[in-house]
């Protein structure tokens, strides 16, 4: 019954807005699987928050209604319900290894179209972008090749086609 939904929330970029949104989720016992936030319209001081959450259809409906009720929230969109959309995540992956394992890490990074953004003689930092599944599988492969550290952005998402939300 419970399924994952990606929800896009357009909010006023004002102090406390993230606390309001996160507090709503913790206070009412909803899950947050991933959350990203950044200002997207500096002129109008708007930020976009992308939240991935899970719940039954009734809970998801409730989450959206509760978000929409917050005073600084402009729009709430359930991308999962509203049709085709794309989701991307960015990860920085640090790998420390030498010899054949170092070469293999570099080769796999090439397959995943990950970029080397820092290199030392015994380490790389890769930047990989893609769906959550792609990032997961890249990290899975790297764990056998000297994985040291991971930083992930969480999901950002957008509808397909020319229409704005």
């Amino acid at each position, binding site marked *: 019954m419970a399924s994952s939904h990606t929800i896009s929330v357009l909010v006023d970029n004002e102090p*406390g807005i993230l606390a309001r949104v996160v507090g709503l989720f913790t206070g009412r016992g909803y899950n947050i699987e991933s959350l990203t936030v950044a200002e997207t319209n500096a002129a109008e001081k708007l930020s976009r928050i992308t939240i991935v959450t899970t719940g039954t259809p009734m809970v998801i409906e*409730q989450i959206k209604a509760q978000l929409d009720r*917050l005073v600084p*929230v402009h729009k709430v969109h359930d991308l999962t319900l509203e049709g085709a959309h794309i989701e991307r995540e960015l990860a920085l992956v640090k790998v420390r290894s030498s010899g054949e394992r170092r070469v293999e890490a570099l080769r796999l990074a090439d397959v995943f179209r990950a970029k080397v953004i820092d290199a030392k003689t015994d380490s790389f930092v890769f930047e990989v972008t893609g769906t959550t599944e792609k990032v997961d599988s890249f990290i899975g492969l790297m764990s056998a090749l000297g994985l040291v550290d991971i930083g992930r952005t969480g999901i950002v998402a957008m509808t397909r086609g020319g229409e704005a939300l």
Partner: protein
Amino acid sequence: MKPEESATTGADLLVKALIDEEVEVVFGYPGGAVLPIYDSLFKQNRLRHVLVRHEQAAVHAAEGYARSTGKVGVVLVTSGPGATNAVTGLTDALMDSIPIVCLTGQVPTHLIGNDAFQEADTTGITRPCTKHNYLVKAVADLPRTVHEAFYVARSGRPGPVVIDLPKDVLMNKHDYEAPQKPIEHKSYKPVTKPDRRLLEEAVEIMAKAKRPIFYTGGGVINSGPKASRLLAQFVHMTGFPITNTLMGLGAFPASDPQFVGMLGMHGTYEANLAMYNCDVLIDIGARFDDRITGKLAEFSPNSKKIHIDIDPSSINKNVRVDLPIVGDARRALKGLIDIWQKRMPRTDQKALDAWWKQIGEWRGRNCLAYKQDGETIKPQYALERLYHHIKDRDHYITTEVGQHQMWAAQFLKFEQPNRWMTSGGLGTMGYGFPAALGVQIAHPDALVIDVAGEASIMMNIQELSTAAQYRLPVKIFILNNQYMGMVRQWQELLHGGRYSESYSEALPDFVKLADAFGATGLRCTDPAKLDETIQQMIAIKGPVIVDVAVDKAENCFPMIPSGAAHYDMLLGPADRAARAVSEEGMVLV
């Protein structure tokens, strides 16, 4: 003249903004951070300030004022403890959708985050217990913020709004700008106009109903007295039965034959069974609270449900409904009446007659019956006598929380909206007395009675001092059973009669206590003297405490034990042995 001389301080701007919002009275308590505001109040005579004795009481008083007038209640407290003391009141107002603007002092902006004296993260603490809150960081933003706060508090589903005011913002100077009307908010735009097609669909469903019932709540009261008049008109047009929630009492006249009483945990047998057996349920401004639904899986299982609510998040939260309609109750009722009059639907009169006959049989159980015999006063009897003496007077009732509250809801009859002030959602002991003070401030000549228990009244008893200072002739009618009665009742029914900490030990002498505060104290222990005592209470011009010694063991029935279904009702003491509460029910509150 230099510009800074012509300009006004933030505190003066605040007072001007409040006057522009047509505020007449502010309930508050001074302190260091709000001294500039108190200085501004001192210099004017448009705004009246009522000094309470505890900040929680300031919010409850403002709630009483708001609920009995339909206006926004205004609170003014200092930073730190002033703000934290207000939190219970704010949460209460949030749960019961009462419009409040609460002004809190804050340490100067440069000290915020430094653990300064009387500093608290007020916006952080009040975020989950307000509809919205603001921290004003510049004096230029202050008037606009105040006007926006009033707009947010009163529009859509009403609620409490906090404005946190650092002391330097209150002292800095700026020119006043009058509010732009109508105020519009860039993101907050509540839907108040219901979709006409959905209302037509609702009428269609209602016209075919065989066993319909109206279930209406606080939303109708919040929508204004006109909504209640329209509700009565529509209910009469349809001929359907109607039940009210605790918060909705008074929206429909209790003496009307179509009224089947309050529903829910301590609602009437007929109301709850009608909810269980109905085939069409028309909810207007009620939110399917757990005190109403009982066991969710068995809540009104065979009905088509229509839910009209101004708050979309109240729809499909607990109970899935068939026809959700977002909008203001008054506008929805106006639309429904209009459609009904145009269509003049032919309802199934035969089925409706049978339904009323069935309801009549349930009514015949006389579920609120009690026996007043012997020498002790039954609490129900005390309330029936109270109602007898006040019913023809202009009166307002507030309550504390517990057994006395439920008996008041059952035995006092509410004919008009805005006359019944009680803490429904949060269940705040200590609400009733300060709320009564707020009601009395708004209605100086009315008879305002706080129906209390001896335990609840102790929670804000210090307000006797406020009542004395402003000569507020509030009557406190204590049903004194020397127990936290509802706690005792649950311990008796659910915890094997182990009365853990529920005995009201070391109670004060309420007559002497009243005397100490310059009020009048009366005591009644004899059923034969009850009428005389109540008449005396009404005749006394000042504040009165009436200490009525009632039966200590009396329980509040009917009762749907937690986790049970509507048909699974305890009707009286004889019922209790028959059923054990399920383990699922035990964990519920």
